C-alpha cells in the first residue's frame, strides 16, 4: 500500500471512530551527515526515518498524536489516542481543517541525483573544504568540516478531500576553524546550503571566508559605553527582524502578546524597511508549494516602506481573526501541530552601496555577531551581545567583542537610515547591509 492509500484509509477510520474532521500528515526522510577534522573522518551518520501525525477534531475539540511505527495496530491505537484527546479539549468553533485549494508547483526543490553521488566524493569535499580553511597561517585549529544531505517527502491529507505531496532535498557544506594568538582564540565558520548539489558554492571561497571570520577578530580592543551608529551585516539582520516576525504571528496578535498588535496599516519603522515573505521562489531553501496543513503558499509583502501590511495566519488563527489563512502554517515534522512561520523571508534591497554606508559612518559599530534573543515580541525591548569592528571616520579601525547593544524596537526600526543593495537570496532569511543611525552601545 502506498502512502496515499494509507492516508485515505486512516482518514476513513478516524471518521468511523467519531472524528468530524481528520488530518493525516506523513513525512519520510533520509539524511546523511559527514564530519571531518584534522584531515580524517570524525563522524558519519546515516538514517532513514518517517512517521505519521494525526490531527482530529471531535465536536470542536482538537486532538493530536504521532507515531513512527507504521504497523496497522500502532497506527490504529495512535489515532484512537488523538480522538480521545479531542474529546477532552475545549470545543472551539475555529478548529477546522482547510479545504482543498489548488496550489502551483515550485521548481527546483528536489535534486534526485544527490543520493547517487559516491560517499567518498562527499567525504573528499569536506576534507577539501577543511584544507582551504586551514591554509592561512593564523588559523591554528580546525573544529571540523561537514557535508550534509537530506531529502524529505511530505504528504498532507484531510477529510475535506485535500491530498497533497511534495519532495524536497537539501545539501550543505560547512567548516569551523580557530585562529589563535597568545591567549586569544577566535572562531570563524561558514557554510553553504542549496537544494541542488551542483549549486553549492566553491569550497575554496567558503573555506577562506571561515578563516577570515576567525583571524580578522584577532587583537580586539574595548570601546567606552556610548551612543553611536550600528551597521548591521546581512548575517545579523535576523536579530532585529526575527522579533518583528514573532510579533506579527496572527495567534500572538489575537492574544494581545505583541508589540505590533494595534499597528496594522500604520507606520512603525523607517521607510527603508520592506519585508517580503516568498513561499514560491524557485529553488528557495524556504520554498514550498503548500504550507504545513496543505494551504497554497504565496508571496506577500508584510511590511511596506515601514508600514505594517500583513499578519501571518494558519487556518485556526485565520478563523479566529475572520480572515483567510495566509499559507503560513509551519510544521517541524510529523510530531507536532502546525504553528505559524515564514518561508523565504527577505528585506528588500535599498539604494545604497555597503561600502558607502561604511564610508558615511563617522563613528560606530559594524556589527558581525550578535547573541541573545533579539527584539522581545511581547514588548519590543531589544538587548544583545555584540561583536564586529569599530568604525571611525568611515574606516574600520579595529575588531571589537564583548560589547552590548540595546534599545526599543520603535527607536531602532525608525532609525534605519541607510539600506544597501547587497541582497543575497540564497538563504531562507536574507537581508542587505543596513544602518541604524544611533543605538546605545555598552562597553568599558
Amino acid at each position: 500500500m502506498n502512502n496515499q492509500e494509507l492516508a485515505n484509509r486512516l482518514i476513513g477510520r478516524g471518521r468511523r471512530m467519531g472524528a468530524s474532521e481528520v488530518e493525516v500528515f506523513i513525512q519520510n526522510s533520509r539524511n546523511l551527515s559527514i564530519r571531518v577534522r584534522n584531515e580524517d573522518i570524525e563522524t558519519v551518520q546515516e538514517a532513514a526515518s518517517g512517521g505519521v501525525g494525526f490531527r482530529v477534531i471531535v465536536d470542536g475539540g482538537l486532538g493530536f498524536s504521532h507515531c513512527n511505527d507504521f504497523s496497522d495496530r500502532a497506527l490504529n491505537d495512535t489515532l484512537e489516542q488523538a480522538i480521545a484527546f479531542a474529546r477532552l479539549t475545549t470545543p472551539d468553533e475555529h478548529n477546522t481543517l482547510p479545504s482543498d485549494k489548488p496550489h502551483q508547483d515550485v521548481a527546483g526543490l528536489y535534486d534526485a541525483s544527490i543520493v547517487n553521488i559516491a560517499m567518498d566524493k562527499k567525504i573528499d569535499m569536506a576534507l577539501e573544504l577543511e584544507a582551504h580553511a586551514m591554509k592561512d597561517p593564523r588559523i591554528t585549529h580546525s573544529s571540523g568540516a561537514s557535508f550534509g544531505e537530506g531529502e524529505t517527502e511530505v504528504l498532507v491529507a484531510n477529510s475535506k478531500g485535500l491530498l497533497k505531496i511534495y519532495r524536497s532535498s537539501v545539501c550543505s557544506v560547512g567548516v569551523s576553524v580557530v585562529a589563535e594568538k597568545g591567549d586569544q582564540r577566535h572562531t570563524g565558520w561558514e557554510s553553504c546550503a542549496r537544494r541542488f548539489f551542483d549549486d553549492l558554492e566553491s569550497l575554496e571561497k567558503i573555506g577562506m571566508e571561515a578563516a577570515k571570520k576567525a583571524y580578522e577578530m584577532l587583537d580586539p580592543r574595548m570601546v567606552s559605553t556610548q551612543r553611536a551608529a550600528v551597521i548591521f551585516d546581512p548575517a545579523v539582520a535576523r536579530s532585529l527582524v526575527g522579533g518583528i516576525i514573532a510579533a506579527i504571528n496572527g495567534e500572538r496578535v489575537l492574544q494581545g502578546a505583541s508589540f505590533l498588535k494595534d499597528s496594522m496599516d500604520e507606520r512603525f519603522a523607517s521607510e527603508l524597511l520592506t519585508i517580503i515573505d516568498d513561499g514560491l521562489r524557485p529553488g528557495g531553501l524556504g520554498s514550498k508549494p503548500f504550507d504545513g496543513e496543505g494551504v497554497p503558499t504565496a508571496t506577500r509583502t508584510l511590511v511596506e516602506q515601514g508600514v505594517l501590511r500583513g499578519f501571518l495566519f494558519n487556518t485556526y488563527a485565520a478563523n479566529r481573526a475572520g480572515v483567510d489563512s495566509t499559507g503560513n502554517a509551519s510544521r517541524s515534522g510529523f510530531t507536532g501541530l502546525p504553528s505559524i512561520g515564514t518561508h523565504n523571508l527577505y528585506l528588500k534591497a535599498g539604494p545604497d552601496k555597503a561600502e558607502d554606508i561604511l564610508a558615511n559612518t563617522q563613528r560606530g559599530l559594524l556589527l558581525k555577531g550578535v547573541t541573545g534573543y533579539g527584539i522581545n515580541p511581547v514588548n519590543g525591548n531589544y538587548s544583545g551581545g555584540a561583536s564586529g569592528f569599530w568604525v571611525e571616520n568611515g574606516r574600520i579601525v579595529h575588531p571589537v567583542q564583548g560589547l552590548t547593544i540595546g534599545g526599543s524596537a520603535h527607536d531602532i526600526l525608525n532609525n534605519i537610515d541607510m539600506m544597501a543593495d547587497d541582497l543575497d537570496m540564497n538563504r531562507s532569511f536574507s537581508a542587505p547591509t543596513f544602518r541604524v543611525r544611533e543605538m546605545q552601545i555598552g562597553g568599558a
Partner: protein
Amino acid sequence: MNSKDFSAGMMPRRRFLELGLKSGIAIAVAPPLLSNLVSCSRPIELSGPGLDMDKAVLNRVIAKALRQGGDFADVYIETRHSRQIVMEESSFKSGLYGISQGAGVRVISGDKTGYAYTEEVTEENLLRAAEVASYVARNGKTIQPVEVKSASRLSFVTVKRPLEDIADSRRIEIMERANQAALDYDPRIRMALIDYNDQVRGRVIANSEGLYLRDELPLLFFIVQTMSDDGVSRHMSRERISEHSGFELFEKDTPEAVAQRAARESIAMLDARDAPAGTMDVVMENGFGGVLIHEAVGHPLEADNIARGIGAFTGKMGQKVATDVFTMVDDGTLPNFRGTINFDDEGTQAQRNVLIDKGVLQGYMTDILSARQLDLPRTGNGRRESFRHFPIPRMTNTFIEPGKDTPEDILADTRSGIYVQSLSGGSVNPVTGIFNFTCREAYIIENGRKTYPIKGATLIGSCLGVISNIDAVANDLAFGPGICGKGQMAEVTAGQPTVRIRGINVGGSRS
C-alpha cells in the same frame, strides 16, 4: 540554554532541523487516561520486540558492527511515550500524544565515530545499521567483543504516583488550578499559557565491553507563563517545575504556587524602566541563575572540545582558574532532579563530579570517546536526545556550591549595580568562552538596596573573566529546571546560591 558548538552553529544541521529531519521530540511527554474514553493504561503496542530484544541478537549486531574494524561498538534501543496538554486563554487548546521507538548502532574506531539508526527495531534492520556504522572503521584495528550480560546501577529516581496511573482529568485539574491562581493574582494578568508535559523513556544499552542495561525513566515538566498588561506596558514571565518523578511533584510544589510566582513577576515588571548600558557589578539571586555558570563554565568543561584541543579550558587542569570561594559541581545523582539520569546513555553510572574546587580546575565531563581520547575516567556525562543522536558529553545538574555569606549581606555590601532575579536563558561559544544571558526580572541596586525594576537586558562576558570575578557566594543554594541545546536537547538543572560578579557588561538602552 544553547551551546554554540560546531554542530549547533552550523547551517547544515540547522537546515536539517528546518526540513523536519529531526527527532521530533522537542518536548516530550507519557500515557494516561481519558475522561470518557477509558484510557491508555494499556500502553500502545509497538511492532517488533523493541526493548525486549534478545541479548543474542544484540551480540550479533555488535559483532557485525566491529567486523570491519573498530575498538568499541554499542547498541541503544529506545521507546518513548509522551503526552502534552496546552491551555491558553483559559481553554484547553490541544492534547498531544506521541509514541516513538528506534535503535542506533555506533562504532568507534580511534577518533572516528560511525552511527546509523533505524525506527523498526528488528534484527535485520539493526544488522544493516551496524554495517552502515562500521563504514568509518574500515582498515582500523579490531577487538573481540565481550558477550553482553545484565549489569546493575544505582537509581536516584523514586516514583510514588506513577504517571501511567493518573487519569487525564487530574492533569486537567492541575492546569485549571494554575490558570485560576494566575488570573486571581491581579486583574492586570491578562493571560496564562500552561503547558503540561510528561513522558516515559525506556532504554536498553548494550556494548562491546559486555554491558547490558535496561531501565525506564519518567519525566514531568510543567510550565506556566503569564502575561500582564496595564495598557502601557506588557510583560511575559515564565515559571517551570520539572522532575523525574510521578504525579507527587504537584504535592511538593502546588500548581497555585507555580502560577503565583509567574504572576508576581509579570506584575512587578510592569514598572520596568530602561536598563543602563556598560560594565557594572551584578548580584544574581539563587536558583536558575545557575544557568550563568552552566553556560560560562559548564559547556567549556565538556570534554569533547578539550579532546579537540580547542576548548577554552584546554591545558588548564590543576590550575587556579577562579577565586577561592568558587566550587562548581555536576551531579547526576541528586534525587529525582530533572538532570538526574541514574546511568548515562552509554551506561556509565551517574556520579557527583567536582569540576572546580576552591578555584582549581579538577575535572572535565566526559563520555566514552572523550575519556579515551584524554585518558580520563568516564564521568557519566555521555547523553543523547534520542536514538536519532549519538551520545556526546553533556551536563546533568550543575551548580555552584554554597558559601559562607548571607544573601542579605552580599546585597548590602554592593554599592551599585544590578540585582538579577530571573533569567530567560543564555548561550556560550565554548572555544572563545564568550557567553551571554538575558535577564527577565532584574532591579537596579543603589547603596546596597534593590530599587526599581529594569527591562530585560543581555549580560555578556568571558568564562575565565567571570569566574575570576565572582567574589561573594552565599549559603542559599537553589535550583531551576532547563532545556540545554548542543545540536541536540538534554534536560538539565542549573543551580547556585546568591553570588556577586564584579564587572559584567550589561546591554541596556541608556547610558
